[in-house]
């Protein structure tokens, strides 16, 4: 009767106003049966983490096309940890060079997706992560 839904926050931190990609991903996750909290454009890391806490999400997915990913991902990660939210997957996508992706992953960010990724890849990744990390502890 109670099926545990995967809750995902999709947000766009920072100043870039290109949200088509975030919307496409949000719709794909919804169509995959997830509950997607879409926070809209121009969010500060603080707003995103505050929303992640209140919504008790499993996954925070950020879309960053501005080039500020090396600032924004670590900032969100740090704020999540400070808020005691250490069980959440931080993932995302955008225009992110692969060496930056590697650096971010070393810091504790999950997989990041570049242009041309099919949405099903992101869906599968989140489902697998969830099955491994969250499904059992509820």
């Amino acid at each position, binding site marked *: 009767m109670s099926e545990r839904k995967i809750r995902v926050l999709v947000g766009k931190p920072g100043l870039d106003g290109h949200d088509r990609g975030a919307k496409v991903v949000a719709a794909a996750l919804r169509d995959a049966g997830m509950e*997607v909290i879409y926070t809209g454009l121009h969010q500060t890391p603080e707003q995103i983490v505050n929303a992640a806490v209140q919504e*008790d999400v499993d996954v925070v997915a950020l879309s960053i096309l501005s080039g500020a990913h090396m600032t924004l991902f670590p900032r969100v990660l740090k704020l999540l940890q400070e808020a005691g939210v250490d069980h959440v997957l931080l993932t995302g996508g955008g225009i992110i060079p692969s060496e930056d992706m590697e650096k971010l992953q070393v810091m504790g960010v999950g997989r990041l997706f570049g242009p041309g990724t099919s949405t099903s890849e992101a869906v599968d990744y989140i489902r697998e992560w969830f099955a491994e990390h969250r499904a059992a502890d*509820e």
Partner: protein
Amino acid sequence: MTELRPSERELLNAFQAGEARALARAISWVENARPGFERLLSALHDRVGRAQRIGITGPPGAGKSTLIHALAQVVRGNGEQVGVVAVDPTSPFTGGALLGDRIRMTSAAGDDGVFIRSMASRGSVGGLATTSREVADLMDAFGFERVFVETVGVGQSELEIAEAADTTVVVLTPESGDSIQAMKAGLMEIADIIVVNKADRPEAARAAGELKTILRIRQGKAFDRIPAHHGVDLSEITRRKLAPGSGGEPSSTAGEAAEASGAEAKEWEIPVLLTVAQEGEGIDGLLAVLDAHFEWLGRSGVLEERRRQRLLERVRAVVDRGLRTRVWREGDGEAILERARADLESGRRTPYDVAGEILGALGPGSGKG
């Protein structure tokens, strides 16, 4: 109710210490019907009942989220803590949901004094999710002075909010005008306050006027406050007709007398307000009316009566939920159904017969039904 388990005790302690994360987690437990969630709710029950619960409902795009955002900003300025439960629809096809109410609450979303929780309706069709009331209870128990509950965008029959909220605000737009007639039967009947939002658009005043007329017709005061018409003041005629000794119906006369002798406290006159939520216009006025309604609820005894009803309704809902769990999750319901499937499909057994067997497995009924 049995003792709390250690994990439940831990969550309860964090909740009572005012940790937002604990409130968020408690909401998830309730939403997911995690084992033990009813013990948690039971432990918090005596802290419930202090907040004003304000239901915000209306058709999609009327500006419900924006209105809540505007209201939240004002009450935050007064130092109040605010909770928001925002419901959006679950897709019946994929089970997924896009919850976008936070977009309209941006600055509030960055404010610790406003706790916003988005909920997917998860198959419930009354405009709320099945557990929205209990989530509002949690926010109330957490200590928020006001809890706003935003329904999905509604049509005419999603009226659960009226039972869940102390004060129900129906939000419309000037363009809702033509559909107002159709709404009379449903949405209009549950409103304590009507807001015509986006009132900077043309026709707002006319829409508000029509709404007032409809409300007066419903109250049996169709001819009140109608200005002189073709040189005849209709309200004057009605008054004369109903005046004692003038041959008016006795019942009407009695009704008027009662109204005149201070029975006003018993009647809440539904106001129609104009707002431009985006610009914050009319929000102070709406807040004043919300306070006035809450005050009236308390003074007239209606609040107490509604809360008494809500207690009974909650018991019924919890029993219903428990029975479903007992039949389908813990019990043999699914197994019996699976065994009967071939017979059902071939027509050897009817659905009623199989349902009877499943119910019978719960134990003998009283036979009263």
